[in-house]
């Protein structure tokens, strides 16, 4: 049986689907957080150089990966909205921005916490750190620009341009440790293999999956509010059971 995926690109059908999916994503995320932290703190051994401090990696790396990935997803939705003028794409981009900004903030915060015992400084103007800070500013710029324009469709178009132009920063963050001589370490996990202990990898990837599922749940919940707000004058919104009650 073929599924018509385009059906879910309309706010009318997506609203209900998102409502059904949120509890599953949220519950899976909570379970994976508990499992990941258990492996990370009870199973994974201490690092021979960094001792217990390295355990910040289990939140720092997933938060950093998600901050970059969410930006690309946000820019992708913004581009779709700009090119095809689809309402839901622009709403999704608007819903992703705050979560992406929070992950960028967590990445910078935990990085500073890790930097202090390892480098002896909370912050250095290193290429990786600076480009990640620019990513946070891009997220904040997107949110501020969108909020400053009253007409939502015009706000979508203006902020979409910023999102698309800003996406050039993501490969800069990723390759910064290769292009410049930085204090930040290079990638530990590569396609050619890794020197990381298997329990450390398991903990990191489990927390990454947990963060990913958390982001999906929160974004879906936020986009439902945005749909409600923007489509409030339509008949289908007025017929929703939560509106009628």
């Amino acid at each position: 049986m073929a599924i018509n995926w385009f059906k879910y690109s309309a706010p009318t059908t997506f609203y209900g689907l998102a409502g059904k999916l949120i509890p599953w994503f949220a519950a899976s995320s909570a379970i994976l957080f508990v499992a990941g932290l258990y492996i990370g703190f009870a199973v994974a051994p201490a690092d021979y150089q960094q001792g217990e401090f390295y355990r910040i990696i289990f939140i720092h790396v997933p938060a950093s990966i998600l901050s970059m990935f969410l930006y690309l997803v946000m820019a992708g939705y913004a581009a779709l909205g700009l090119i095809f003028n689809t309402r839901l794409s622009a709403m999704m981009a608007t819903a992703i921005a705050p979560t992406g900004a929070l992950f960028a903030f967590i990445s910078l915060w935990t990085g500073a916490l890790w930097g202090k015992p390892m480098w002896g400084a909370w912050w250095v103007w290193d290429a990786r750190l600076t480009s990640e800070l620019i990513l946070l500013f891009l997220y904040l710029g997107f949110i501020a620009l969108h909020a400053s324009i009253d007409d939502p469709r015009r706000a979508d178009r203006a902020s979409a341009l910023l999102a698309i132009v800003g996406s050039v920063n993501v490969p800069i963050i990723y390759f910064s440790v290769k292009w410049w001589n930085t204090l930040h370490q290079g990638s530990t996990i590569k396609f050619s293999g890794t020197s990381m202990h298997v329990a450390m990898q398991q903990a990191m990837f489990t927390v990454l999956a947990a963060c990913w599922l958390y982001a999906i749940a929160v974004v879906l919940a936020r986009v439902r509010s945005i749909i409600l707000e923007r489509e409030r004058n339509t008949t289908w919104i007025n017929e929703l059971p939560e509106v009628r009650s």
Partner: protein
Amino acid sequence: MSSLDIWMRENPLAYVWLGSYAVAFLIFAIEIAMVIHKRKITLQQVRLMREAEDEARDDKSGENN
């Protein structure tokens, strides 16, 4: 060496937990609370608008009768 440096070297796990994980989970909790609050407020606004529309319609039909 500051007192924070000494404390973090003596209690690395507490430093890691309180400094990064507690902060990250606090941020997640604030975000969830904000999303729930936004949903409540938006639903309230939509309900109020619907009620106002219903009242206006009732008034109009009353005037016509």
